[in-house]
């Protein structure tokens, strides 16, 4: 029998997301320090020209964060259109993943593969790990949209948690873009 | 490494050709004899320092020399595998196992010639652990240790190939498995001489293989009786 607390409390999801963010931060911190250390002692580091498409993808991801913020405010006020903005977030998120795939194909067409050199290896590893986490976020968004469509009351706790995660993915990508530009 | 790989492929091709060649009849009495020599200066063999493994070092009064190039009087080259690479009939698989010994931290013989699918028994005669690692490229590669007193390791190979063999535990230990399709083969001693008896009259390709000098082949026609001579001369460099 669900207790009163468990039904209403939004807190565990939020705590879980914060803890998850801490873990993901450590993962990328480990990748970053690995990259710094690997580059530091290496004579075989060849700079990589980032596909310009990445910047377009960045815009898409930032836009998706914006759309989610609009959705969140509307849902919180029970204003109309929340669900639609949620869908927009979802579409933009999928578009980002598609864009990343295109960027990889672009690099592959230039003959730059995972094992080509250390810089390309780190590029693929970082972007792919990020994309995997974004896919997790997309699944959460899809679940959220399903809940919003089904329920009369928006699940605000879940919404807040998913939004925190999604914005973190956004920020993480901006961070990756910077270190990829600087190091790779 | 790469050349060795090409070699194995070439050998396989030749072997395939051999399978189509006319067969040597029963009671054939033709013989090919010859001598393998070198010109130039061969690399000097060095004494092997077995200090790391006292149980082996004490077995040798004088230090064992490296065996990459073994030479004899009158520029003779030892450890050359001479065999019929074309013109021979497909031979049956011998069921008698060949024997390969690890004794005094040396492979005996240095080159073991076996036929395809012929069983090969590998013995550890030492009081120390050995490790047999045939670096096969065409055949499956394996890597097994053999503690003192362990039973012999049974091996066999399905495809012709010259396989370098090393002991991971004793870096100086190197040998070869020569896996051939023909039953007509010989390994030269330090006098460089070889004999390939029992050949039916006909045209053959004789090939000589040496781990450092590579391979040479020549066409030989064997008459009904008597011996034909086929000599091989390798060019040696000091380094």
């Amino acid at each position, binding site marked *: 029998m669900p207790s009163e607390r468990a039904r209403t409390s939004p*807190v*565990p999801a939020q705590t*879980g997301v914060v*803890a998850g963010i801490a*873990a993901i931060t450590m993962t990328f911190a480990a990748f970053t320090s690995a990259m710094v250390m*690997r580059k530091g002692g290496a004579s075989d580091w060849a700079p990589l020209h980032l596909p310009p498409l990445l910047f377009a993808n960045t815009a898409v991801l930032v836009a998706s964060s914006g759309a989610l913020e609009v959705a969140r405010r509307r849902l919180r006020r029970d204003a109309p259109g929340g669900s639609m903005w949620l869908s927009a977030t979802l579409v933009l998120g999928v578009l980002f993943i598609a864009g990343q795939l295109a960027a990889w194909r672009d690099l592959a067409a230039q003959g730059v593969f*995972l*094992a080509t050199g250390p810089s390309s290896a780190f590029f693929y590893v970082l972007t792919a790990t990020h994309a995997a986490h974004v896919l997790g976020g997309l699944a959460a968004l899809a679940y959220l949209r399903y809940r919003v469509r089904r329920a009369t009351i928006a699940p605000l706790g879940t919404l807040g948690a998913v939004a925190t995660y999604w914005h973190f993915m956004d920020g993480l990508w901006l961070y990756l873009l910077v270190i990829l530009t600087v190091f790779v | 490494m790469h050349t060795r790989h090409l070699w194995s492929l070439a050998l396989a091709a030749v072997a395939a050709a051999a399978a189509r060649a006319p067969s040597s009849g029963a009671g054939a009495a033709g013989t090919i004899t010859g001598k393998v020599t070198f010109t130039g200066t061969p690399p000097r063999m060095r004494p092997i320092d077995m200090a790391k493994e006292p149980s082996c070092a004490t077995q040798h009064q004088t230090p064992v020399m490296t065996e990459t190039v073994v030479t004899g009087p009158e520029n003779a080259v030892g450890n050359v595998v001479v065999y019929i690479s074309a013109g021979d009939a497909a031979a049956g698989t011998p069921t008698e196992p060949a024997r390969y010994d690890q004794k005094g931290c040396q492979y005996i013989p240095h080159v073991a010639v076996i036929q395809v699918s012929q069983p090969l028994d590998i013995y550890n005669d030492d009081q120390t652990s050995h490790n047999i690692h045939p*670096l096969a490229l065409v055949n499956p590669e394996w890597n097994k240790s053999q503690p003192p007193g362990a039973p012999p390791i049974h091996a066999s190979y399905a495809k012709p190939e010259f396989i370098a063999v090393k002991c*991971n535990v004793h870096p100086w230990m190197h040998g070869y498995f020569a896996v051939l399709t023909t039953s007509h083969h010989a390994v030269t001693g330090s006098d460089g001489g070889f004999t390939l008896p029992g050949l039916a009259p006909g045209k053959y390709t004789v090939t000589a293989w040496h781990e450092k000098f590579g391979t040479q082949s020549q066409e030989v026609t064997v008459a009904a009786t008597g011996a034909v001579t086929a000599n091989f001369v390798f060019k040696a460099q000091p380094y």
Partner: protein
Amino acid sequence: MPDTHGAPQGFLRQYVFSLDHKVIGKQYLGLALVAVCTGMVLSWLMRWHLGWPSAAVPGLGAVSPTGAPSGMITPEYYLSLMTMHGTIMVFFVLTTAPFAGFGNFLLPIHVGAEDMAFPRFNMMSFWVTFLAFAVLVSAFFVHDGPPISGWTAYAPLSAVGKDAGPGQGMGQTLWAVSIGLFCVGQLLGALNFIATTLDLRTKGMSLARLPYATWAWFITSVIGLIAFSVLLPACILLILDRVAGTSFFVPAGLVISDRLQPHAGGSPLLWQHLFWFFGHPEVYIAILPGFGIVSHILPAVARKPLLGPKVFIACLVTIGFLSYTVWGHHMFLSGMNPFSATLFSVPTLIITIPATVATLLWIGTLYGSKLRFNTAALFCLGFISVFVSGGLSGFFLAQPSVDVYLHGTYFVVGHFHFVMGVAAMFGIFAATYFWFPKMFGRMMNETLGKWHFILTFIGVYCVFMPMHFLGLAGDVRRYSAFTDDYMKGSLPLHRFITVAALFTGAAQLLFLYNLVRSRFRGPLAPANPWDATSLEWSTASPPPHDNFGGQPPTVFHGPNEYGVAGRSGDYIMQASPEPEPAA
């Protein structure tokens, strides 16, 4: 997503893919039991080989014809046994049993919740861990056998593939995949522990009133969250080096098995840094739950409050924090800048302060106590003794200048087996004897338990103390045999250790028998057999599906109300509404 679920229907939902934290906790403990038996059999084979290198192990030839022809253990098979023993014990026993196992069963009850915050993640956590174990064990059955590069899997030995030796092909890849999966499983578990402790505490259960075991699980889960999220990327990079031809850890120009390796520019030290950044905190992941368990049980058996409870919590937090600053002490001699050795040595020595304080608090708690000598109590006392012995030998290894001599010797083996192996196992045993009645509703046999303790306690000292002697004499660890002149003099001592290890192992049969028999035949347990205070003792043995029968308890006291004078019982339960006694 606060997940709620009613009592499950059907066998699969109830016992296999259960969302109930109590079932998941038992599943983790079952996995750990299988793992610990496997790991111990592997250690017996190793000890057999070290004592009598050329004697065949009866029957082993049939099980492992390649690794042990006619039962004779080959050097690579020995290293496989060692690698699998270390990996199984560290990951699948010392992490799963005290942390994931008992933590899962007890933490939600301790905080007064009906389940974990995310039951689905919790279930996934177990099954991913189970999969990780299956993948690891499958390495025994692949062509070349299990990996031989130790539980630390130092690159390039672990990164270059089959040229590095038998087991370094598919076996090593399976190892890396298994550990990667394990990280995922433990991360999901850690998320749950953190969210549950912070958010699902029942009314009145302030952080200050959390039982000490729960504090330890909470801090361990924070450590685990950070540690496993660093090991996971390290495993990904290792797998890529192995299967995708990248060069993160493999430098150029290596010739292995006569073959020039197709790698360039990688850094072997990078793996060591990533691994030990995880690896040292992992030691605390293994031992801190033991700290918590001992501090939880000790007041209940000593019938007096834990000395300095706030100091104890502070010790846990300090250890957790410092555990991230000391990883370099595993690498004093690995070619790091020699200045960094001093840098890592200082926090390593400082971390002994909170550990010393915790030990003194336990010993101080025992002062003037009225000890009840049940088996759980004995294992707590044994924990303290063993932890002192192992902790003190750490003083030697923490100093770079002494480590120069002792690094890589049996001294290290003796040290970490005492401090994280045996001590953590004693914590697990104490927890098992203490909470078994709660978990299964039946009491364990105390007579068997006491014999189990005495034999084990003497046994482990006979096994691991002599390893310190061996180390002092310069005996190198990870050697499959001491067949040459070197260290031949230590063979008698090795044989003594082997006999002691087999003896200690045999003593564990008493435990297994007791476990199985008590599960079905033990006398029924009352709700609170030990007169203990924490919330699990307020509910039935075993607890109902939602832990408290639909009524979440309200907490009025901390867990430390033992030895209360002037009343019939000498303790006050956390959920008891009576007022605090006058000090």
